[in-house]
């Protein structure tokens, strides 16, 4: 590199440094809802600086093509930023696929530009980049398809599944090693990518809908790590930093999600939860349950001092969050303290339930995490469960034979009265019977979540005026 070039190169590197600092600040400001929007600005400024810095780079001659690509990307990006809040999980999965696609394509292009004149180290990280990238592309598309319910949500399993998956991965890694040693074998490169793509599909096929929060987080981590590997290949510190940040974020969220479901990583990926589900659903007996009408429920709620609402994904499916907000308003107006207990896996991705409730204008300081609120249930008059099932199942605490034994749950059974809005007595998503429903302090409110909450609200306002 000559002396006069170094000058502009230094400017660009300083711009990248500023962008890196802004990215870290951006994530730091996400620690609280009051500062989080500064985080977006920091991220946007950092991104803009980095792109402008890159456009200044000496080797760039073709600006027209860049402009067209940036414009097309923006045109695709705008609708992806405007999806409904219930569709955010599949949107996120789709964007993991896009991110990984970018990384995989750049890795492939770099390979064909450089091979066979490529160092062993570079070929190794490049292989990591395209294998991780490739499996994330198809894996994320599969996850998005399952979340959008284009693909079946049920886990698809067959005999020897793990063996086939491991074999594929081993072949991909074998090709990578061969390419590291013989980079002139350029014809093998496409096979490595094809196998990584196939591996991504097969990896997600056996994973059921209930495990999607963990899977999305894991794919987020993979996307980050593949971007960091791309940073090694391009010797770009900015990319290494952004990839490491994204990778650690995905990793932390995956750990939180698997803990919340009492599963290990390996168990999510290779466990095939579906088989356990089938076994647990069998052998139900008729046990007496008590039920109540909307009128009775409204009377109990308005007599209460403290109410905790436990929303589950069923509430979002029934589009009941706006009715729930009306209930919150009606009860708050009567001086009842209403809070919401949020289980980490209450939605389809980490934190999803909070977004759905915030969209319905429920203040975020009323949304309380599981660990914080669990101690308050014994002093709570009414726990109202809407569309949640397994996360309230006391068998997770007591029944060692239960498939969800050990899973952290919301201790709703400790409240003075529990009311559960549910369509019928059919077991939920995971097919596990819930002994909560047969307890003496439990009332079943049979009906559609949205309609039932609506009639409670009508009763409350009718009784008032």
């Amino acid at each position, binding site marked *: 590199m000559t002396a006069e070039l170094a000058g502009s190169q230094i400017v660009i590197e300083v711009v990248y440094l500023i962008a890196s600092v802004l990215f870290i600040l951006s994530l730091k400001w996400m620690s609280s809802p009051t500062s989080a929007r500064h985080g977006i600005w920091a991220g946007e400024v950092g991104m803009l600086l980095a792109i402008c810095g890159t456009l200044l780079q000496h080797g760039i001659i073709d600006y027209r093509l860049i402009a067209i690509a940036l414009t097309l990307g923006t045109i695709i990006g705008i609708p992806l930023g405007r999806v409904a809040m219930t569709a955010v999980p599949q949107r996120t999965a789709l964007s993991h696929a896009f*991110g990984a696609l970018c990384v995989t394509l750049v890795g492939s292009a770099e390979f064909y530009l450089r091979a066979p004149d490529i160092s062993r180290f570079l070929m190794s990280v490049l292989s990591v980049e395209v294998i991780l990238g490739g499996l994330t592309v198809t894996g994320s598309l599969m996850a998005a398809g399952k979340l959008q319910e284009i693909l079946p949500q049920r886990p698809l399993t067959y005999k020897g599944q793990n063996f086939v998956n491991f074999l594929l991965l081993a072949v991909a890694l074998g090709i990578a090693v061969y390419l590291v040693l013989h980079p002139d074998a350029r014809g093998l490169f496409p096979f490595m990518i094809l196998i990584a793509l196939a591996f991504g599909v097969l990896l997600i096929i056996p994973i059921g809908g209930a495990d999607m929060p963990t899977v999305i987080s894991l794919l987020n981590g993979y996307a980050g790590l593949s971007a960091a590997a791309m940073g090694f290949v391009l010797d770009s510190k900015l990319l290494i930093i952004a*990839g490491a940040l994204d990778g650690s974020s*995905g990793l932390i969220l995956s750990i939180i999600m698997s803990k919340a479901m009492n599963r290990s990583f390996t168990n999510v990926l290779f466990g095939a939860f579906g088989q356990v589900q089938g076994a647990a659903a069998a052998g139900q007996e008729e046990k007496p349950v008590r039920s109540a009408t909307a009128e009775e429920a409204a009377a109990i709620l308005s007599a209460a001092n403290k109410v905790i609402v436990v929303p589950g994904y069923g509430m979002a499916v029934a589009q009941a969050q706006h009715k729930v907000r009306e209930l919150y308003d009606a009860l708050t107006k009567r001086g009842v303290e209403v809070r919401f207990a949020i289980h980490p896996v209450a939605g389809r991705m980490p*934190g999803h339930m909070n977004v759905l409730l915030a969209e319905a204008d429920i203040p975020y300081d009323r949304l309380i*995490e599981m660990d914080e609120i669990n101690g308050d249930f014994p002093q709570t008059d009414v726990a109202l469960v809407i569309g949640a099932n397994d996360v309230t199942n006391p068998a997770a605490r007591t029944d060692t034979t239960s498939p969800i034994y050990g899973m952290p749950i919301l201790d709703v059974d400790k409240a003075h009265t529990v009311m559960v809005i549910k369509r019928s007595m059919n077991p939920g998503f995971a097919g596990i019977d819930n002994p909560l429903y047969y307890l003496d302090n439990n009332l079943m409110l049979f009906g559609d979540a949205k309609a039932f909450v609506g009639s409670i609200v009508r009763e409350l306002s009718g009784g008032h005026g």
Partner: protein
Amino acid sequence: MASSSNLINALFIFVLAGFIGFEVIRRVSPLLHTPLMSLTNALDAIAVVGAIVLVGEHKSTLSAALGFIAVIAATSNIVGGFLITDRMLRMFKSSRPAAKP
């Protein structure tokens, strides 16, 4: 390009950035985990810089074509990611009226 000292530098950066990421993200409120994921997704799309260079340098038709698609994919993540994160964060309101400026 990747001499051994560059490699060591890159590894230092990767490991240290990983630590920072771990410490910073551990402190993110679970309330905001969904916007966190869409934000990191947008930031991760910084990979666009590598793709821009591929398109701009136009060293071969293949590299420019692959780079072109890569720029589109990453840009849609940047635009969509920041947009939806902003939309989500706008929804989070406190019950204390003082929080509104």
